[in-house]
């Protein structure tokens, strides 16, 4: 099992998300994360789908996605050739000033932004590779994570031309 990231250009039609997720359900593939957003081309949206599965499952997914009429382009992004980002918002419990300063120090070392601070909590934002966010969240669990939000991954190929 391996995580694969597939970047799609899809027609910006109502129902396109249902069609996409329906295809994954139908073929028994589990989506780890999914993001949808506008892109540089009008009328098209970009979807970034992370799935877990074997090479052959990835192959099947790629072909089945290409078969969908509203999918204009399918790019299979390899981890080594892509910049992958996930955005995480988390609210950490801080019981005392000591904990607070420790949380803030750690946040700084990870490059996380402090968005809000209250008497018993700090709200942080971290945009990073998913694995690095995992590590950061694990650290914060020692203090007590009250709420955790992640957007799911989005990715872009390195270099000039990526969408082969």
């Amino acid at each position: 099992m391996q995580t694969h990231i597939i970047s799609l250009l899809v027609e910006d039609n109502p129902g396109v998300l249902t069609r996409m997720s329906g295809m994954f359900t139908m073929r028994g593939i589990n989506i780890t994360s999914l993001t949808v957003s506008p892109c540089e081309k009008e009328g098209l949206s970009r979807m970034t789908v992370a799935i877990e599965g074997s090479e052959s499952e990835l192959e099947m997914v790629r072909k089945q996605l290409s078969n969908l009429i509203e999918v204009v382009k399918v790019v299979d992004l390899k981890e080594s050739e892509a910049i992958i980002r996930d955005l995480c918002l988390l609210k950490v419990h801080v019981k005392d000033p000591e904990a607070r300063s420790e949380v803030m120090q750690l946040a700084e070392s990870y490059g996380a932004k402090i968005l809000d601070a209250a008497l018993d909590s700090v709200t942080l934002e971290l945009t990073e590779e998913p694995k690095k966010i995992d590590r950061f969240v694990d650290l914060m669990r020692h203090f007590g994570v009250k709420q955790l939000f992640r957007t799911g991954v989005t990715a872009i190929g390195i270099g000039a031309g990526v969408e082969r």
Partner: protein
Amino acid sequence: MTREKLSGAEIVVEELKDEGVEVAFGIPGGALLDLYDVLYKEEAIRHILMRHEQCAAHAADGYARVLGKTGVCIATSGPGATNLVTGLANANMDSSPVVALTGQVPTSVIGTNAFQEASTFTITMPITKHNFLVKRTSDLPKIIHNAFYIANTGRKGVVLVDLPTDILAGVAEVDLHPKETFAGYKPNIKPNQVQIKRVVEILANAERPLILAGGGVISADAAVELRHLADFLGAPVVTTLMGKGAIPENHPFCLGMAGMHGQLYANRAINECDALLALGTRFSDRTTGWQLDQFAPDATIIHVDIDTAEINKNMQVDIPIVGDVKLALSGILKLLEKKREKKTGSEWEKRIKKMHEACDSCVEDISREGASVSDILIKEISKLLDDDAIVTTEVGQCQMFAAYYYMTKKPRTFISSGGLGTMGFGFPAAIGAKVAAPDKKVVDIAGDGSFLMTCQDMATCVENDIPVVVCIFDNRYLGMIRQFQELFFDKKYSQSGLGITPDFVKLAESFGCYAERVEKPEELKDALNNAFESGKPAVLDMIVGKEDKVLPMIPPGGSITRMIGTERCKHI
């Protein structure tokens, strides 16, 4: 293109005509009143009023399979559309080009659980090649044009267009007959020449080549090319259920259908070949058996399919060719003819000849020991019908009897529900077939269980003068279920007995059909003649044995090399 101010319903009908639609199978409803108002005065489109929407979809499917032309079915919103679902799933599974038009509640109330509202768009998404929910009247020309384009190109399939009432009633100034298509739809048609060269290399050097012909050969109209290649290579041809008719089954190289209920020697040939050229087939478990390592173990497997997603899906293959089967076959033939002479008199050819004789005698010889009434009846039907006659089947034992014994001579004359296995398909499909080919005899090989599922459309046949003949293999059982319970579930016939109702003769007569009971096989010939001569839709209630079984077969979970019930076959 002509710019015109038209209502949505008028645009739909204009575009249908532009796509060459001559027939539509449907049932009107509240949400479709505008469309039917336009159809009322439209002479170019013959609308056949069905008695159940499922039958409308099956009829459109049957029509499409006979002509290769897109079939059209129409159903209203809510229950009309949900009733279509089985028929659409069936057509899509078997890659049959069908366009479905459904009514929908007005866009302003979509999502409010309005009267006769169902989310047809989401319900049909997984069972169609593509579907549309139309949101603007002005979008209709492009959508209808593309519905037909998508349905009947690439891997053919079903496209549904959901039409809210306000879209049909609304007026827009539009350019009719646009040619614009969607950026994301580019079917792979032209096969890769490098791959073709590789295939030719393999085939030219193969000692025991074999061709497995699937439904793709028929939908690509590649039967002629298939025969040329088989002749040139000296290669036997086995077919899938969907491929039946791709080659005349009396052709000396044809070994009939392979797979679970296939011919013993069709399966043996798969076992023995050293190169397998699979054409337009998805290697369904019904064809391969369930132990894939025992399917063509010594062969280099070549797979030609128009759908990339079929390559390596069910079967890991050695050389894939993505593209149209007809183009691939002509490409292969062209190179092959340059490369070497036609092969004749090989050991393999002698072996095939023997295998063909064994298959043939099994099918031909009626008096053979162990033959059941069902065996005899289906062989009789095969003898009595001419080569152009179209046979449709229901699903279950009747279907497999037909697949095994019915000698199909031409493409598009054997119409069966291969993928979905829909009981009740055969009769409405026969209606579609007869409408498509009014001059041909059309016979539905039915079971009593299947026929009861869609028999209400006898009314459609009578009202519209569509004289199809239904031959019911009447054993008062869900026969295939009974057979499996007998063979694999200790003869515990759980819920497979159907009791004694109805009297099919009286039932058919009450609809105005010609009907006759066939108590003994020797009565069939006259009964079938009477049925055709009546000129009416007809039902023959053929009494068969409860214990009649479709044999030989691969038991579920088994391997293609191990069939049971082969004592009935001629061994060589």
